[in-house]
């Protein structure tokens, strides 16, 4: 069984927010809510500067803190790629998952009337396509695939390049990796 993850090359990313726009349209995300977003960090003092630009989203953690706190089982780990998903009909909007997520990835979708977040676009992945954010990226900064398959593009990138995850101290074992 696959274990899906994403590898994002901060060297290629220009922070254009195309990933955000694509997710919004693909997934009918209500304007004002975000399933993905971009963080730009400026490091240093003029003129000795560095930028780190990161496209962020749900990390589909191996140890997802949002799942055990859910009283109804709406927030769950799917058998499809071990992704973290939400069954909208079962969500009672208690917000415990929102509080538990160290990445701020979850919100209440007022239209779906449920907690919501990035799904890794599993509806596209099932058709053999990349998630919308990966497919649109003009700089090809994002790669999606099976972390358990050593021959996958994501595994190869993680082997070849230095990478990091967000908030490793939270112990969530995130599956969105950033190449630095």
């Amino acid at each position, binding site marked *: 069984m696959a274990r899906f993850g994403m590898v994002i090359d901060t060297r290629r990313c220009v922070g254009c*927010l*195309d990933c955000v*726009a694509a997710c919004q349209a693909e997934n009918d995300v209500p304007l004002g809510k975000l399933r993905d977003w971009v963080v730009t960090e400026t490091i240093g003092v003029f003129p000795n500067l560095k930028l780190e630009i990161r496209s962020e989203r749900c990390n589909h953690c191996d140890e997802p803190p949002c799942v055990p706190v859910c009283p109804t089982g709406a927030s769950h780990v799917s058998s499809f790629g071990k992704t973290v998903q939400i069954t909208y009909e079962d969500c009672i909007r208690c917000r415990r998952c929102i509080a538990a997520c160290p990445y701020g990835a979850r919100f209440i979708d007022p239209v779906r009337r449920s907690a919501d977040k990035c799904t890794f676009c599993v509806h596209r992945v099932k058709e053999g396509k990349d998630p919308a954010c990966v497919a649109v990226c003009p700089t090809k900064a994002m790669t999606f695939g099976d972390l358990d398959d050593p021959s996958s593009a994501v595994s190869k990138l993680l082997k070849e390049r230095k990478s990091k995850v967000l908030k490793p101290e939270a112990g969530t074992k995130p599956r969105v990796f950033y190449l630095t």
Partner: protein
Amino acid sequence: MPGLSLANAAAPVGTAGRIEAIPTYCEMCFWRCGGIGYVRDGKLWKFEGNPLDPASRGRLCTRGTGAVGAHYDPDRLQKPLIRVGKRGEEQFKAVAWEEALDFMAERLQKVKAEYGAESIALFKHGIGVRFIEHVLKHYGVTNIAAPSYSQCRGPRDTGFTLTYGLGLGSPEPLDIANTKCLVLIGQHLGENMHNTQVQEFADAIGHGATVITVDPRFSVAASKSKYWLPIKPGTDTALLLAWMNVIVGDGLYDKPFVEKHGHGFDKFAAEIKAYTPEWAAKETDLDAALIRETAREMARHRPATLIHPGRRTTWYGNDAQRSRAIALLNALMGNWGRKGGFYMQSGMKIAPYPLPPYPKSEKEKADNPKGYPFADEGLATGIREATISAKPYPIKAWVVYSTNLVQCLPNDRETGEAIDKLDLLVAIDTHPSEIVGYADVVLPEANFLERLDELNVNWGKPGWTQLRQPVVKPPHDQQPGWWIAKRMAEKLGIPECMPFQDMDEYLRYRVEKSAYSYAQLKRDGVLIGKPAPIYVDDGAEISFDTPSGKIEFWSDPLKEAGFDPVPKHVAPEPGPKGAFRLLTGRAPMHTFGRTQTNPNLRALMPENEVWVNTRVAKDLGLENGKYVKLTNQDGVVSNRVKLRATERIRPDCVYMVHGFGHTSRMLKSAYRRGASTSQLLTRYNTDPLMGGTSVHTTFVTLAREA
């Protein structure tokens, strides 16, 4: 190919529905990427890149992806309008097309009868103007200008035409993907989303190319660079001359190439001897050793070194000479027709539809009253000047297609003065803008996702042809440009100039006459031409359409016209004490002032910010994230704008993204959001070679919002 199996796309989780996928090409900006519009249950769902299209390569930029919002934008123009209040009060009544077209035609006829058709001017942007321009030309209109020349790419085109005999055009033939050293002078790729170039920029970064970025601001591109040169604004030509001084002085240039293809090299070499890195260091506020090091780095990678020629190059009013310096530095690299430099484009032969010829005018054009000798397109500011002065003859009507003259021309007071002279101002656009607010009659156009348009026949590697076809119907009473043009022709009594039933017939004729399949074009969205060699090493031929037939290191035409035959640096005029130079640029999710009401793109950037160096902000007692107002050297005060205190800019300048601070109330969701750079642009220099007008000649002070 994914582009061909369009009917198989499935609905996302939780939605059912019938999906249609229709290829077309984008007009969110001028890059014209091929995309595929997806319609779910009859409603526009999303717009994705067409993998068959060489410009998008299956990936649209942020604005293209956000094009969905342009269709749904509640602020867009919905019905034809006729003005009822005073000009600029934005009081209109909605009318039927027949009434609006009659209103326009009667007044155009009156201007033509009294003054001649030359007294009608057309301002334009984008391919949608094709048939409106055609009908007006047939009517006798000769004064036609696009601000995209005199307010944007003009200096570059002129600088390269003077040097290579080629103005580069769009998309520019830059082999960025294969370059080993890319030099960006004020070009903020990544913030400036010229899609193909951004894609290739990332490829160049991916394979470890050296990037050298010259910018007073630590742009995103600068952050990807091995070398960032935080230059003093307005001194780029000094740096370019010093780079050439090192490269020629140290003998690092491509000598065989220059010997074979260069004209006047010795005189050029003698002249640039004076421009040492030490001299340039004082002008540019850069380190002389760094200037030397970067010059050598460029030479090390030649011919796969590319100094980006730029696009929006109207900065200081001496920009054609700076562009010429860029052209010459490239020539020293011997990169013309070489991998990683400028590739050689090939075209695609698509038959024209037989249309009657245009009448000849007895009058000279009025668009260049000052006679700038190297203007190779109409000057928008020239038409404005002629409208104000009524010289060489009165201009009494403006037809403005898809260009917001209030924001894109410098000094809006002059624009207002010119408008006051008009008997008729027609605006044709998809959405309101400040200029639309001044119009006497407004014709609402269907947007690009809702209309057929002229074919876009591109030069490229190889050439290709794109079809624009409707993905969805216009939501209100909007009509496509070709339909407006055809009705205009009828009303003006010249229906013979539009001798086809509809656009479909016109397009089918052109495609089938060229022995291509119209059905295939409709299905794929693109036709790809025959490949031809793009590199000299593969057999591509290079030639230079200049007086000498060579690359003009020394320009006799410039000398004869009384200009410097080799570019010289002109130090920028300093601003008032305590004021900061205002620099402007682009954001990846907006195009000019045209997208601020698009709900999808507004969600990504609802207003602009003014970037101020952290230390400067602290000294001024200004807080990050708080609103400030800018006052320019003439006392013009901006709308409020959020302060962004950042290390990413020099202390002597501030920066804002252009296109915000709208004053049109018709743009409800963008009204007074952020500040307008053009409102503050009251003083500008005009390029003596080609008439381009500067945008980086404003000085401002900042104060907390009262």
